[in-house]
């Protein structure tokens, strides 16, 4: 019996390890390939992305080689990205000034709204909450046209506001935060009320401190979502100079595979740090979504 259990655990472990390898592979490949020289990349992937820009002297392998460890570690790609062409850094900065306000203000607006959904309930409010859920679930293809129209009317088309404003009011974090807040015991609020606290004081002094972890985890989720956005800027912010790096990355041409991997790695750093630092919160944030109801 005991032996059997041990055996099955080993099998499960191997299975998990296999899946973990498969899931992790693209991340690892991106990072390690960014340290390869362009000629090594050409040799490995030449068949697919044959740019032929090297004047035909470079060796191109017949088959694709999936290589995890570079023959020679080189920082050439990074040098190009970081020092030779300020364009990439500018676009990185564009990403930052688009995403950071969205994250901060979306969480701020959402926490106030979530308090309202938690504190007062009734048929009307339940309906509005349900409406938020439906809105949250609408695919991008549906919201594309409305988004475009509204930023056209407001005259913010092709400015950063066209991305930031709809981002701030996206219903996702309202939904998530409401779920978090509904777990706070009512007695806490009651006690504060008896001590003479007003609604705003209850919100800032009682409710918010309880939600610190929740706010952090929602911020991470929202950040990851917007950090990798591609469609919204393409439609609402056609001006290439203001577009975030994620858009540029998606249009990079296959002749610059090496650069693409280096930029992708740099672009991954903020999310990677959030992942390593806030993994528990991230998991908590995902787990709380649980179900759509209530």
């Amino acid at each position, binding site marked *: 019996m005991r032996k059997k259990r041990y055996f099955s655990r080993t099998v499960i472990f191997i299975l998990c390890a296999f899946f973990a390898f498969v899931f992790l592979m693209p991340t690892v490949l991106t990072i390690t390939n960014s340290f390869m020289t362009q000629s090594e990349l050409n040799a490995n992937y030449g068949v697919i992305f044959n740019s032929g820009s090297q004047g035909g002297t470079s060796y191109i392998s017949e088959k*694709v080689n999936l290589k995890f460890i570079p023959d020679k570690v080189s920082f050439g790609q990074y040098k190009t990205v970081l020092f030779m062409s300020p364009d990439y850094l500018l676009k990185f900065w564009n990403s930052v000034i688009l995403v950071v306000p969205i994250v901060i203000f979306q969480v701020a607006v959402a926490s106030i709204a979530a308090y309202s959904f*938690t504190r007062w309930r009734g048929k009307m409010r339940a309906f509005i909450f349900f409406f938020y859920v439906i*809105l949250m679930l609408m*695919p991008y293809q*549906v919201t594309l046209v409305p988004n475009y*129209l509204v930023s056209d009317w407001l005259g913010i088309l092709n400015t950063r506001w066209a991305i930031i404003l709809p981002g701030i009011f996206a219903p996702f974090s309202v939904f998530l935060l409401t779920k978090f807040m509904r777990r706070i015991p009512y007695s806490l609020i009651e006690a504060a009320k008896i001590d003479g606290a007003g609604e705003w004081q209850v919100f800032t002094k009682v409710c918010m401190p309880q939600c610190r972890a929740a706010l952090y985890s929602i911020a991470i989720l929202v950040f990851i979502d917007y950090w990798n956005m591609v469609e919204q800027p393409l439609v609402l912010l056609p001006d290439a100079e203001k577009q975030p790096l994620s858009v540029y990355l998606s249009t*990079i041409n296959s002749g610059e595979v090496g650069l693409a991997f280096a930029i992708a790695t740099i672009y991954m750093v903020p999310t990677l740090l959030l992942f390593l630092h806030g993994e528990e919160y991230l998991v908590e944030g995902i*787990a709380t979504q649980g179900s*759509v109801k209530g």
Partner: protein
Amino acid sequence: MKAPTLARPRVKARKSVMDSERSREHRRMKRADFLQSMCFMGPSFLGVLVFFIVPFLVVVYYSVIRSPMNREFVFLDNFTALLNNSAFLTAAKNTLTFSVVAVPLAVILALALALLLEARIPLKSQFRTFFLSPMMVPVASIVLIWQVLFNANGVINDFLGLVGTDRIDWLRSDYGQIVVLTLFLWKNLGYNMILFMSALANIPKELLEVADVEGASETYKFFAIKLRYLSPTVLFVTILSLINSFKVFREVYLLTGGYPYGELYMLHHFMHNTFESLDYQKLSAAAVIMAIAMVIIIAVLFKVEDWFGKDVEG
């Protein structure tokens, strides 16, 4: 097992004629309460109204007029035109086929992974992180790597070559949707798995212990107990996967361009190509149809869940 919550517990007010004074007071309190609640909800609701609801209503309006210039009411004309448009039909059909296969797979495989990780094995939390790692990979490297994997000379073909199958140029073959399917599963399984893991952790332990004592098999325990408690999560993961199955077309678009081979032509391509020609009527009608379809699907899923999980909840 309802935990006490922030919301004011509902106590039915006893009606009495005697204290009208008190009821007036009560009403005033209620109004103040309402005003306060509106103050809190206001900013968000206003934003949602301006940026989502009103524009969507305008889209609905656009879908029933001839054109933004000539605002003649044509009711369903745009819809019939759309439903006779072969590009739209192909796109809708392909999207539907994809979702019908991909969404259940995403739910079942994620649940399987979550169950696997329930076992007592080393490195559990590391595995969890690894499964989540696809969330952070930028689109560009995803596109590059998927090309490396699924090119005619790519890695997958090398592996298949070992078994002796012919080389396939995946993206230009009838198996194109398989490429998208792997991409979709890779991106979303981790997220779904976390949802299932937390739901599994919330199943009352006593129930499973009793089942153990009574000698229930693992399969019985799964279907009779776990699946019942998981049903709200199954619903949520299904809906989430459905939405994400629409999102994955961004990568497909980048992999294949605007006019891909056969089965890869999805609604996303259709919307994108129509958007470039700024045909508002077609776009609006398509958006309205999709919104209606989403609401219907969600409503049906809710009903199914209601029926399935009724003896567990409440």
